[in-house]
């Protein structure tokens, strides 16, 4: 090939690559109000809630699989996670967090009332101290504002110090409600809701009953099913109270029979669409002006 035509070919190829990259990088769709990514981390929970450039990581799964999920969900140049929230200190919820502290800057570590002497929880506390990350312990009624349109409210937690060891750690899980409001056009009625997501950690029937008795069960479009789809959680009464249209089960290969067939029946009986991280991979709920849309790495629910 003559040098001249070779140069032309190289120039054309370079121009083509730049054009493709440009088309990919410059998108014109409006950014979502918030997203919630339920990461496929095996048998455990790891949920990244993002609103604008602010991220809150709720639990970190059992191991370093959470890093792959974060790599996919976080913007490439953003190495700061503003909030890391621990629902309770079991290994399948905090096992990957020490690795997260090693890779990302963390703005604040937020704990509920439940405490436990697990090595993973100890490693997390050591990592937080080593990085000088401030730690907050939240109570029911507290709220974490992520952006003008999105906030996380604490619905339930144990009213206790993290220095003690809890007896029933699952039932002391932080229960959080993500509320996304549509931008206020200036009307007198105030901003309308663009979606709500209830995150129940590993809370079971006991917590659900307590919330029902106290009348604290919020209505939500999306429910993150408690305790990886255990038979003991997400009771029929709780579903009646929350009235979700979609449920997400964060589950992996396990010996406990999660998710339980009885629970799947309960969800099906109410016509609730179910996303599962073990089947669909990372599941993303996108909160926009027109409501909630969904995407996943592997297929869609039937």
């Amino acid at each position, binding site marked *: 090939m003559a040098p001249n035509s070779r140069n032309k070919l190289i120039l054309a190829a370079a121009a083509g690559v730049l054009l493709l990259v440009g088309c990919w990088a410059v998108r014109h769709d409006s950014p979502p109000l918030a997203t919630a990514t339920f990461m496929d981390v095996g048998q455990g929970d790891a949920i990244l809630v993002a609103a604008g450039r602010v991220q809150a990581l709720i639990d970190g799964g059992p191991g*370093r699989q959470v890093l792959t999920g974060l790599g996919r969900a976080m913007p490439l140049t953003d190495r700061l996670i503003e909030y890391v929230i621990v629902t309770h200190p079991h290994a399948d919820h905090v096992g990957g967090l020490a690795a997260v502290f090693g890779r990302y800057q963390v703005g604040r570590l937020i704990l509920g009332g439940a405490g436990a002497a697990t090595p993973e929880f100890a490693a997390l506390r050591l990592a937080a101290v080593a990085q000088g990350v401030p730690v907050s312990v939240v109570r029911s009624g507290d709220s974490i504002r992520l952006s003008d349109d999105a906030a996380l409210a604490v619905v339930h937690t144990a009213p206790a110090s993290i220095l003690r060891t809890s007896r029933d750690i699952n039932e002391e899980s932080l229960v959080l409600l993500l509320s996304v409001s549509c931008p206020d056009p200036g009307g007198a009625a105030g901003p309308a809701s663009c979606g709500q997501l209830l995150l129940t950690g590993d809370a079971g029937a006991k917590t659900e009953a307590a919330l029902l008795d106290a009348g604290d069960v919020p209505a939500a479009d999306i429910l993150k099913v408690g305790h990886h789809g255990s038979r003991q959680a997400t009771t029929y009464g709780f579903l009646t109270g929350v009235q979700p249209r979609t449920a997400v089960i964060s589950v992996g290969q396990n010996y406990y029979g999660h998710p339980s067939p009885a629970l799947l029946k309960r969800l099906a009986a109410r016509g609730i669409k179910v996303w599962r991280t073990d089947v669909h991979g990372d599941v993303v709920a996108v909160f926009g002006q027109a409501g909630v849309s969904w995407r996943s790495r592997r297929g869609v629910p039937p």
Partner: protein
Amino acid sequence: MLRRLAASSSGTLVAWLLAFFGGVAVHAFDERIWLAAGYWLAAAGCFLVALIALRPRPVPRLLAGAALMFALALWRFDAAIPAADPPDEPVLVATELVGTVSREQRIMSDSATLDLDRVFVCDRTAVGQRDLSALADGGSAADGSCRPLAGVLRLRARAWPIFAYGEVLRWRCLPVRVGLNSGDPFDAQAWLDGVRWRCSTREPLAAIAASERSLPRQLLYGLRSRIRLSVGRLLPEPEASFLLGLLIGDRDGLPPDLVAAFRSTGTSHILAVSGYNVARVAEIFLLLFAAATVRRRRAACFSLAGVLIFAVVAGAEASVIRAAAMGCTALVATVVGRRYSATAALSLAASAMLAFDPLLLRHDVGFQLSFAAVLGLHGLGEPLAKRLTFLPEFLGIRRSAGETLGATLATLPIIILAFGRVPLLGPVANLLILPLIPWIMALGAGGIILAAFWFSVGQLPALAAVWLLRVIETIIGFLASLPFSVELQAGPLGCSMIAGWILLLWYALVKAKPIPLRRPPLPAGLEIEVIEYGSKLQK
């Protein structure tokens, strides 16, 4: 042919090295001890007699040397065979173990693997809460409640906390013997690493002391740890683990689906530091020094140092040592002004590694694949490329295709025997992704170095590396989703047949002379005059 070989010093050296290789190969078929030190004496005697009697004649010298090397190989193999397992000692049901961390801790997805030496197994009821840290420093339990375990113990435990090299740990578990007769699937790599025991526990491990360990190893592990930390902060996952695989052969953090995609497209080799990576490192150094107008020989010296440092930092695995040995031979040839011979370099590297551990030949698939690939690359690459005339020469596509095809063919019997699966799209996948690898390595290494001084500046090349790594992931993911991977089960005989066929192909391509065409006689009066291209016909 023998005379020609004997007349050349490099030919003689290659013949001797091949004789050593042959000795190891012959003994690898039967891994029992044959004659032990007997070979050494017999071969030395024969060689001396041959040398004295036939010294001036090169052919007998060549043969005597080859015989000596062959015998040496047999003796070395005998010496490398581990002693038979001692009879099973009574297993203590209530066991407490003490051991010293002898390698870097490997962190998998939700667990960790620790290699420990100087391991003692103790009767838990007898030792109670007693301080056992003295055991690691050569002490002993006076009451006989503890006894040492020979070899390294591989412990699978929770991922946290992380223990440093040299720390003395105390934990509870029931050790199980690892070996040829343990009944479990044989893990050759662990065995070659000296692992003789394994156990797993979910209970916490306690660090009870820190013992003195080798300073070079401490420095090496410290450097590797710094590289991991820097890459982890610069790049997201899984690209960080991917880059670590390319730079230091550290691939523990890769997600299983990506590992499966690499395997099914025949591209796993890029994740282990191999000859390809070493060659690219040498190239990058040579280019940098050339740009800095350093003289060729001096640049080769610096590159030699760079390759050696890279090999050490990369963990000195079989493939790394082989590749570094070959790369160094090429660079040394440049320094001393000699012609580089790939055959001589490969023979030297293989013999040196087998002299170090002859068991590699039979048990280390990485070693086998690595050598087969280099053989294929050098032996078949060029002749195949000459026949791939339908491919363009632009950007070296034809040469790369020939080399990839040659390496794939040469490794085919080993892949079938070891994995039972042939990725048909392997050559295509390799052809597409290999040109990107040197750029990724250079950008990644540049990012790490720059980030050490100024993190934000280091992010720029690192981000470019992430883009390229994502391009590779997309290509691999797409190709892995296509149904072009064939399950093939073949025993040693079947694989030998395939190897034989590939040898014939090599002979046909390289050695066989073309059959001359029989032309009909020219009609009377007609003459042919051969003229040079471009010259004028002058009568």
